[in-house]
């Protein structure tokens, strides 16, 4: 099973490069701490997913690069070529001369339709190179114009053309302040459109990644390249091969399978769906693949990633880890809204199980306990079979309408990831993103009330009603997550 990556805009292209570089380095590292045979299987599986091979043997990333101006693409292509280890396809990029100018409307309504054929052709060529396609991974930021606007446009078109393939969007959530002034407008337009066409939104917040660079990696002068490496590390730890079930002899074939395509159904039908056997549903949608259930309902599509340990190489040399310690921290990060290992609030406890919470969470109340819809834990490294995951199976962690057995999954491999002897990654569909989303919607709404900057969008055909539609949809998402 292969994944076709589409990297859009300056942010998407810079991160895309780091992701492929991380995947390649890790799969070719000799530090896997496992048998030679195991290592070879791991490498082969990684390669099948993310790289194709040309005659001369240099792996080619299964990626399409899209930007509306040439500088970043030129830089990205040559960086990959200079690495000498892997490269991008010779004709797998599309760029124009003039960027989208931080204007979502320009990207979505002008650039998108104008270049639809060319971009979709490139993607189709990449798809044709795959023996079997598991889905699309679309990397974009939501603050600017190209990644956000064209990203939303392309995702929508992929949904039309490849409705049976999974589409997961990697969204870079902008800093709370200081990147792009119209970022909140661009963000609500992006999120609302992706909510209609994507299967899952994997979100990374710049503020959180920045903090990880400062606190955990101990970098003093943090560059975008530092941030992108942290991000690529997190994504690598999700996407590198793992075994699907205990004792299974084969590496999972479809890592994107962590997002389930659910039918656009209401809660009621979801309950009916879940009352059926989960395996039956997966077999129905994706023959032969065990699918995880991180997105059991179309109202809940936002996934966050947490990982542990993450530290500078210097500190790593002096650290040892136990599975019990790592998982205890990871669980507390989950329930207490922590974005990283440092500064976890250990006071937060799950509500007593069995007792229903007293009424619904008030709308603007500080969220203390983070309720989950579904979680996936990925463990990599030594003695992985000994790890005890009971802490994640507590029903109190989850919304009342899902049983832990359906809401929690684990992937494992003995093959260590990167330089970490043991490491654990959590992909969580929970209330993690309610606050940031609520903030973005609130700020965009305030600006919208003053009508500031609206003329820049109507110029390219995005009208006030389109904004209102986006606000309505996202207020619904916020309310749904709040009411878990």
């Amino acid at each position: 099973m292969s994944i076709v990556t589409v990297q859009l805009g300056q942010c998407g292209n810079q991160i895309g490069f780091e992701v492929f570089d991380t995947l390649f380095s890790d799969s070719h590292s000799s530090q896997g701490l496992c048998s030679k045979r195991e290592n070879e299987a791991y490498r082969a599986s990684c390669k099948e997913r993310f790289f194709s091979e040309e005659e001369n043997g240099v792996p080619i990333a299964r990626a399409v690069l899209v930007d509306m101006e040439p500088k970043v693409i030129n830089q990205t292509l040559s960086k990959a070529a200079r690495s000498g280890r892997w490269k991008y396809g010779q004709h797998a990029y599309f760029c124009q001369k003039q960027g989208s100018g931080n204007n979502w409307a320009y990207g979505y309504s002008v650039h998108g339709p104008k270049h639809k054929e060319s971009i979709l052709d490139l993607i189709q060529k990449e798809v044709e190179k795959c023996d079997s396609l598991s889905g699309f991974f679309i990397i974009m930021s939501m603050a600017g114009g190209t990644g956000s606007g064209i990203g939303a446009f392309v995702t929508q078109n992929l949904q039309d053309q490849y409705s049976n393939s999974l589409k997961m969007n990697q969204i870079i959530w902008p800093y709370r302040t200081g990147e792009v002034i119209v970022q909140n407008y661009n963000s609500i337009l992006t999120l609302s459109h992706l909510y209609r066409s994507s299967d899952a939104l994997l979100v990374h917040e710049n503020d959180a990644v920045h903090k990880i660079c400062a606190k955990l990696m101990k970098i003093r002068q943090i560059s975008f390249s530092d941030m992108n490496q942290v991000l690529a590390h997190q994504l690598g730890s999700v996407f590198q091969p793992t075994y699907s079930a205990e004792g299974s002899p084969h590496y999972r074939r479809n890592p994107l399978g962590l997002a389930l395509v659910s039918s656009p159904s209401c809660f009621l039908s979801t309950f009916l769906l879940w009352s059926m056997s989960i395996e039956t549903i997966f077999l129905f949608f994706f023959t032969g693949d065990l699918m995880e259930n991180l997105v059991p309902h179309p109202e809940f599509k936002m996934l966050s990633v947490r990982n542990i340990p993450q530290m500078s190489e210097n500190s790593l040399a002096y650290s040892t880890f136990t599975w019990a310690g790592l998982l205890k921290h990871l669980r507390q990060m989950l329930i207490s809204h922590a974005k990283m290992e440092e500064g976890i609030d250990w006071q937060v406890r799950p509500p007593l199980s069995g007792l229903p919470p007293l009424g619904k969470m008030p709308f603007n109340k500080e969220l203390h306990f983070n309720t989950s819809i579904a979680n996936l834990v990925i463990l990599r490294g030594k003695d992985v079979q000994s790890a005890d995951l009971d802490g994640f199976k507590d029903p109190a962690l989850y919304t009342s309408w899902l049983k832990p057995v359906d809401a929690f999954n684990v992937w494992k491999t003995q093959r260590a990831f990167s330089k970490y002897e043991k490491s654990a990654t959590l992909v969580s569909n929970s209330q993690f993103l309610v606050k940031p989303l609520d903030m973005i919607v609130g700020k965009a709404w305030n600006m919208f009330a003053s009508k500031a900057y609206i003329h820049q969008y109507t110029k390219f055909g995005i009208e006030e009603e389109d904004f209102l539609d986006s606000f309505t949809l996202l207020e619904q998402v916020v309310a749904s997550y709040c009411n878990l």
Partner: protein
Amino acid sequence: MTQSVVVQVGQCGNQIGCCFWDLALREHAAVNQKGIYDEAISSFFRNVDTRVAGDGGSISRGKICSLKARAVLIDMEEGVVNEILQGPLRDVFDSKQLITDISGSGNNWAVGHKVFGRLYQEQILEKLRKSAEHCDCLQCFFVIHSMGGGTGSGLGTFLLKVLEDEFPEVYRFVTSVYPSSEDDVITSPYNSILAMKELNEHADCVLPIDNQSLFDIISKIDLVVNSRKLDTTVKPKSLVTSSVGALKKQHKKPFDAMNNIVANLLLNLTSSARFEGSLNMDLNEISMNLVPFPQLHYLVSSLTPLYTLADVNIPPRRLDQMFSDAFSKDYQLIRADPKHNLYLACALMVRGNVQISDLRRNIERLKPSLKFVSWNQEGWKTSLCSVPPVGHSHSLLALANNTCVKPTFMELKGRFMRLYKKKAHLHHYLQVEGMEESCFTEAVSSLSALIQEYNQLEATESVPVPDLPRLSVA
């Protein structure tokens, strides 16, 4: 990559333009040591094989043969343009891209706008079209002119309308030099107000510059340099006196140094569009982020470091000083105090060895001391360009959409009204064909409306607008 065309109008516009081309050449020479014509150079220069007669000599790649500025030079006198054509930059300008006359506009906006406008409209259009044809993807016209005289003010703003009609998709960024209150052109308030109406209506962004502020900045530098106390810390390579490989080693006239500041403004404004960086900012992002309402497109700019020593290691304290300075009124290119007025939006364009963490630290540090309008509390736009200015390790251009421009406009209006009440010199204007009294009344009400918009924004500071309740969902 996109291209831009510089249209320099009048004496002031051409002098600044001349400085700009000098600095632009030096900047690209410093970055591009191999002499290959690359995309960065192509944004402001054509590569031409001069041996080919006619217009067919454009070379799109390979070695630099002969660089021609993407410029149109317009003056209704010959003096300044002739000086340029006899000076060291003569080969950079294509003789086909000049428009001159001998009679001058006599410091009369009406002569520049109405008489020469009509007379030269076709010629101007032809040169503009020609310059546009030479571009692969024309993104922006940079118009440089002054507000107080006749040609720059009158013909310069006439041209804006022509650009708007002929190239509606191409941005119009205008660098406007405003007269100081001791200006020796007696009719400068008339000319400025008449020009303001055109700027209000036909520009995408205006970068107001004030001669007095430039002069103050130069005087301060001279003071520091001459006092010798700080001999060791004052750079010989500031942006202002920017010496490295300069054509003019010594600045006899203060105007040279002053024009240099403006030229640097344009270089830094376009650097992130021309060169690589980890956070690019294209020219079309400027108006998208900084112009919340079409009329409010006046951006106050400040450049740092102007007179601090820049050394390669950038101790953080000194780097942070650069950010603090950008908000001080001493560094603004018009007399304005953004720190004590209301921000609608602010852009920080950084060049050189500065990373995102430096930017964020400084935004967090400075934010509490700045007032932003209620609906844009986090109105920051940032860019990081990896190529520093020649002779520096880093630099910062701050662009502020801030109500602090209002006093400049009010003062101008006051000076206009004093003349206009007495009808002084009015007949010089009214005798020009096409000029009516209504031109004056319309211009002054256009300015009043602009001032009123700023007033309304300031009023929201004392009486905050209540937040509109969020949409509720069932």
